[in-house]
């Protein structure tokens, strides 16, 4: 089975500095592979190990500045290749920086068509930095393939279909979907493997292909369509920040209960 895994270079939110009411310093924060996309890569590699085939990772660079992000993208690609992906296709273009999810999906569809065919596309259910969860569904629509999100398990049978175990609302479901299909995964599906030193060294020899939008025959995202981020500010979360210090646990407990009663919470 030929599997494509979608990988986003997401902003590392843990390393992001933010002052209330101001814009978080996005340019200064590093990017890394979005956690849940690592689960998608792991699932793709384990499917190949079970039934054979190939794994290609695809990524569209969304964050600028491009020069810096390219460096981070090479590192990210190395990690994904070390986990067992066979090759990495990176779409990097100034015009794609800051593009909306519709454009990202169109770029991914073009890259998938150019380097395909694929039987299955796997992606994380959302990315850490944006958590919109829109790209996989948009991509499925763009390709005309069925879309099954939130997989907690994927079972590859014969006969050109897979079974997806997932939870939606108050129900657990097993969904059978004909291939080709797009499936998004949750963090529950597996534990991404930690590559060995040998795998990391070998990853450097695996193919990393960088494509521009013109390589894919795509114009830049047109004006007047989609979504434009006009500003990002850190929320002013007003927390009281009272630290309760006391001689004994009992005293601390009494003081906390007193505070909570005074605040009318209990």
């Amino acid at each position, binding site marked *: 089975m030929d599997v494509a895994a979608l990988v986003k270079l997401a902003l590392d*939110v*843990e390393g*992001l500095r*933010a002052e209330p009411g101001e814009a*978080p310093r996005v340019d200064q924060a590093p990017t890394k592979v979005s956690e*849940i996309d690592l689960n998608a890569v792991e699932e793709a590699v384990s499917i190949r190990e079970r039934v054979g085939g190939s794994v290609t990772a695809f990524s569209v660079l969304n964050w600028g500045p491009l020069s810096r992000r390219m460096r981070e993208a090479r590192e990210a690609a190395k990690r994904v290749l070390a986990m067992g992906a066979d090759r990495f296709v990176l779409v990097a273009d100034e015009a794609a920086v800051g593009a909306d*999810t*519709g454009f990202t*999906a169109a770029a991914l569809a073009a890259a998938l068509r150019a380097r395909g065919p694929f039987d299955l596309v796997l992606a994380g259910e959302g990315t*850490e*930095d944006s*958590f*919109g*969860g*829109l*790209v996989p569904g*948009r991509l*499925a*629509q763009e390709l005309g393939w*069925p*879309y099954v*999100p939130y997989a907690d398990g994927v079972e590859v049978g014969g006969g050109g279909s897979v079974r997806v175990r997932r939870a*939606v*609302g*108050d*129900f*657990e*479901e*097993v*969904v*059978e*979907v*004909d291939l080709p299909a797009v499936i998004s995964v*949750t*963090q*529950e599906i597996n534990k991404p493997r930690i590559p060995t030193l040998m795998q990391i060294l070998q990853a450097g020899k695996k193919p990393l292909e960088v494509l521009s939008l013109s390589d894919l025959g795509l114009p830049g995202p047109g004006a*007047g*369509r989609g*979504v*434009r*981020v006009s500003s*990002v*500010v*850190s*929320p002013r*979360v007003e*927390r009281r*920040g009272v630290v*309760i*210090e006391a001689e*004994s*646990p009992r005293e*601390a*407990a009494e003081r*906390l*209960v007193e*505070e909570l009663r005074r*605040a009318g*919470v*209990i």
Partner: protein
Amino acid sequence: MTRALVFSPDDDRCLELISAASVATGGGLDGVDLLLAGPAGEERLRTPSSTGVGRIVVAEWSDPTDAFSVDRALRAWIGRERPDYVLLTSDRIGRQVAGGLAQLLGGGASTEVVGLESAGGSLTVKRMVLGGKGIASEEVDTPAVLAIQPGRFPPAEASGTAGGAAEVVRLEDPGADHRVRIVERRPRERSGVRLEDAEVVVVAGRGFERREDLRLAFELAEALGGAVGATRPLVADLGWLPGSDWIGISGVRISPRLMVAVGVSGQMQFLAGALDSKVIVAVNKDPNAPIVGASDYAVVADLYEFLPALIEVLRGGR
């Protein structure tokens, strides 16, 4: 006229979306169409009908809890009417269908929306990003699909002036996509109260050393009249609590009156699911843990010493 289509699997949430749609369409409700999936008799139609929505679209054959069936109903209406806005709740069903519908309409989309502002014919959407560290303002072109977080808009009320009931339109089943088949379905296992609805939530984190020690969290929750939740590692990695509900950006979002985070370090992925808590209490050994800075009251203490004392004070004081 600007038209909006509204759907939520929960009829009460529909009323919130009707309010949101009124903002998106610039005030008038006669441009808002409400999709009701499943059988809809007089009773079910009465409340939404009285709000002044334009049309109520009834897809009797559709199951509001089945995302594929909902998707089919939405696509049937969208293909026919091409609404300018599609408003959904930002739950798993809403997020499943939002991307595909937006690409179908060739328009913008935002999920996890917490606010809407309409000015000068353009719509600005506010949503939480960067694991809760940023609120992004996004200008969204029409057509647009918006998935809105529950509880962000007041439910639409019965309008005195509308008088007449909304027009009811029956939507035919366009037929299933045979490429996708639900072969098994059963109700989810839950560990107790729905955390989303709890007024007080005690959250257990990695500070608990053994599974059996969680009884302290349960005793505290009992003393406070609340529910017990956990961070992701306790549920997903350790399996210490049944079910699959943990609190976080990719899990359950809670908005209790009081959250007591015990032995929780306070990583962004967790905090983003708990930001709407009115009052946050942190109990942690480490004064530098991020949760301490994100709380209203922090007790720097060993949970094994502090929790028994707190439970005793709460019990004794009542």
